[in-house]
């Protein structure tokens, strides 16, 4: 698609001297691809996508800078005062500064808790995607390149795992790991367990995609040529095969980020995820759910809204990315 703009670019560079032409080509290769590509065009055209991107970016920013925005550290029990428990949001009659969105039963500021919870949710989501992506890509490369019995085994496992919903697998892994370590796990290790459980639940799609593209590229002449000049197999795969599969992998990763965040939230909501001492958005919702009937709606409403907005934004981005990178699907 970017080839279509080449004649235009050539016209421009033709008039300038050789030095700037080289610079321009270098510059043009990067920025031109980025800004004149179909991807950016479709991005600019879709207002929904732009809003979704802005919301996602905002969530990441406030999560990263949470300590500077929050009025308290909700993970630090010393900062919580029971005197401040169950205060309604600021704009209601019973509101109290500085608790913008009210407080929960431990006197924890809901706004600060959401910021820190968002941090945990995004951390688990991103780490989970990185882990499942690395695992899936590695297994896909091995399956596609080695072939034979190894390929059969990996893909057989993938088939079987794909018939089970990821949440069930994550719950099981979570349960088993917990039973192995008993209840000795601290909050940080629980986060690790969640990343591990989510990673093991979502690797299949990457593996299938990468394997497919390896199978296509494997028999092409340049791979044989690379083998002939003595490049080792892993280098060939990483350098030549992976770039071709990058588009679909990016789409899967974006959609899986939303899925990973949902899975973490669900596990935490079910009481199998992050503990109350280091709550993620899902934990906050589970805590707040207990106060639904006593009238403290804000404890559950705001974390729920943030979670919904986050997932919706990432899903919209993923949808757009899929459509933009794969014109055939449109």
């Amino acid at each position, binding site marked *: 698609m970017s080839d279509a703009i080449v004649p235009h670019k050539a016209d421009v560079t033709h008039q300038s001297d050789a030095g700037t032409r080289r610079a321009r080509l270098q510059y043009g290769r990067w920025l031109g691809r980025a800004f004149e590509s179909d991807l950016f065009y479709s991005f600019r055209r879709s207002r929904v996508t732009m809003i979704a991107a802005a919301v996602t970016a905002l969530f990441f920013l406030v999560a990263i800078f949470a300590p500077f925005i929050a009025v308290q550290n909700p993970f630090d029990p010393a900062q919580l005062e029971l005197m401040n428990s169950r205060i309604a949001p600021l704009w209601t009659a019973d509101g109290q500064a500085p608790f913008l969105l009210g407080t929960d039963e431990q006197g924890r500021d809901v706004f600060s808790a959401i910021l820190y919870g968002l941090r945990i949710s995004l951390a688990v989501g991103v780490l989970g995607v990185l882990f499942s992506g690395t695992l899936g890509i590695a297994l896909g490369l091995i399956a596609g390149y080695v072939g034979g019995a190894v390929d059969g085994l990996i893909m057989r496992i993938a088939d079987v795992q794909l018939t089970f919903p990821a949440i069930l697998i994550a719950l099981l892994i979570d349960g088993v790991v917990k039973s192995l370590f*008993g209840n000795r796990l601290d909050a940080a290790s629980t986060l690790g367990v969640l990343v591990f459980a989510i990673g093991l639940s979502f690797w299949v799609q990457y593996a299938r995609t990468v394997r497919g593209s390896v199978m296509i590229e494997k028999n092409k002449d340049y791979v044989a040529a690379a083998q002939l000049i003595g490049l080792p197999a892993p280098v060939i795969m990483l350098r030549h095969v992976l770039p071709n599969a990058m588009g679909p992998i990016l789409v899967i990763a974006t959609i899986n980020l939303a899925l990973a965040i949902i899975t973490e939230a669900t596990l935490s909501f079910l009481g199998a995820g992050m503990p109350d001492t280091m709550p993620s958005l899902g934990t906050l919702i589970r805590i707040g759910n207990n106060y639904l009937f006593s009238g403290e709606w804000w404890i559950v409403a705001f974390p729920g809204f943030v979670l919904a907005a986050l997932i*919706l934004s990432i899903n919209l981005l993923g949808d757009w990315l899929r459509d933009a990178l794969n014109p055939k699907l449109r």
Partner: protein
Amino acid sequence: MLAFTLRRAMQAVGVMIAVGIISFSMFRFAGDPVNQMVAIDTSAAQRAEIRKSLGLDDPVVVQFARYFGNAMQFKFGVSYQFRQPVADLLKERMPATLELAICATILAIVFGILMGVYSALRRDTFVTKILQAISLIGISLPTFLIGILLIYLFAVVLGWLPSFGRGDVVQIGWWKTGLLTASGLKALIMPSITLGLFQMTLIMRLVRAEMLEVLRTDYIRFARARGLTTSAIHFGHALKNTLVPVITVTGLQFGSVIAFAIITESVFQWPGMGLLFVQAVQNVDIPIMAAYLLMVSLIFVTINLVVDILYTVVDPRLRATISRPA
């Protein structure tokens, strides 16, 4: 045909054996069963005794064979929390889960098809845009949030529906049904919607996509050129061609519905297998987790096997259509 069926059946058995091994490993190695059964002050000698009586000193293969043999007879051991045979617990809880899952599926099929057909036929109307927004939300929102939202609206604010439990149940043999009492039906509404919403959006999107594709085909154009009525074309010719993949996908999804019932049952404290499983995970009740894994796998594998065989019976060409990603 027979060879195909046999091969699929062999694969299904293979999967079940693999799941059995995982289930057994959990049962045997994740946490010491003896520790879970005895008090802290039990002496080492007594522990060894129990260990021997449970057959934990036998070779692993023997233990596995025994475990698998017992599982075949639905003997899954005793729950750590409840001190009851797991099989009894599952049997008691199963009707609740099945009733919920079936109601949710019916709801999803009926509304999913209606909404899908509508949004395919009236592509640019306001209602269609709303339906598509709902479908996006249905796919994006976590199940438990939808449940909480429904509870807040219909139980807390409006007070119309109960927020937890099954209501009154009637005992028919060993099956406890909530379908025969008013309170039981009322209690079923919100959990069914919560559980069915995801499938509903899935079916709606599938019906819409299939319908749009079918409406573009030559035989629909030819049907229009023959002057058939619009309703005959839409509901006779187009919908019938849409339904075959929809029904197969829905069938395949039934296993997922049962698995996703874990979340819905937790939100609504619905006394089914899923709630039992979540409590087992929270309390590290390995026998229940292992048995639940086996049961759900059996359901999944059976459904997959039946659908696989049905494909070839109905139309061999369908296999290609179904296996494409949604």
